[in-house]
């Protein structure tokens, strides 16, 4: 596998769309083809290119062949983590702060006390 092969594989819009489909779930050719107007044969050819570029791996499930993103081919470990950690920590910050500020705001959200109105 090489950067050239990966870039060539990704130059084709159907192949980019296929990658998005198989990034979270392993899918068969039939399942993938349902999402496109092109023939199942054409999908198979695209999958072959993606496999040869090291972007997609095949897993056997009984008699079915399922396609899934190849964790090594899709990213250098460093790139994966360089994307994961900063973006993840930003999401962590938002998640914690939204929950924490809601918890803290509740007392001030109470109606003013009677003595405060006097």
């Amino acid at each position, binding site marked *: 596998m090489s*950067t050239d092969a*990966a870039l060539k594989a990704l130059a084709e819009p159907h192949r*980019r769309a296929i990658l998005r489909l198989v990034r979270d779930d392993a899918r068969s050719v039939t399942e993938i083809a349902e999402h496109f107007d092109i023939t199942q044969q054409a999908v198979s050819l695209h999958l072959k290119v993606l496999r040869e570029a090291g972007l997609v791996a095949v897993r056997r499930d009984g008699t079915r062949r399922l396609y899934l993103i190849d*964790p*090594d081919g899709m990213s250098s470990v460093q790139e994966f983590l360089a994307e994961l950690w*900063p973006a993840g920590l930003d999401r962590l910050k938002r*998640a914690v702060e939204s929950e924490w500020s809601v918890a803290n705001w509740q007392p001030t959200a109470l109606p003013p006390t009677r003595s405060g109105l006097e």
Partner: protein
Amino acid sequence: MTAKPYRTSVDIAAPPEAVYPYFTHADAIVAWMGDYAVLDAVPGGIFSVDINGVPVRGRYLELDPPHRLRISWGHAGSDLLPPGASTVEITLTAIPHGTRVSVEHRDLPPQEATKHAVGWPHFLTRLTVAATGRDPGPDTFAGTRTG
């Protein structure tokens, strides 16, 4: 041979006690990392999170609530970083008005082993965002913070 550790940090406006569960509870961790998690936050317990199709697998090595965690980290199916191959140390330090969360990811494979790759998850994330009709915003790929 391993690469130098990856380090980053973020400051959060909440005390360490409020941040810590986001590393130990499956419902909380998926709010910021991954789509599906199975966590058993005891020493030796399972740390399993699926992130954008990458099955991250490891174990909790050390827990010191709410200050520090050490977790082993690898990717199922990966030859470069098999499950348990690397270590993530998370430190929660109390700072004025909040917590500094520092991440140090150690024992990563050397860069040369993987230099053919060009950051596809980043690329795909932007593709997905673009595909849903939202503006993916400026490309901040080079803007990785270190701490």
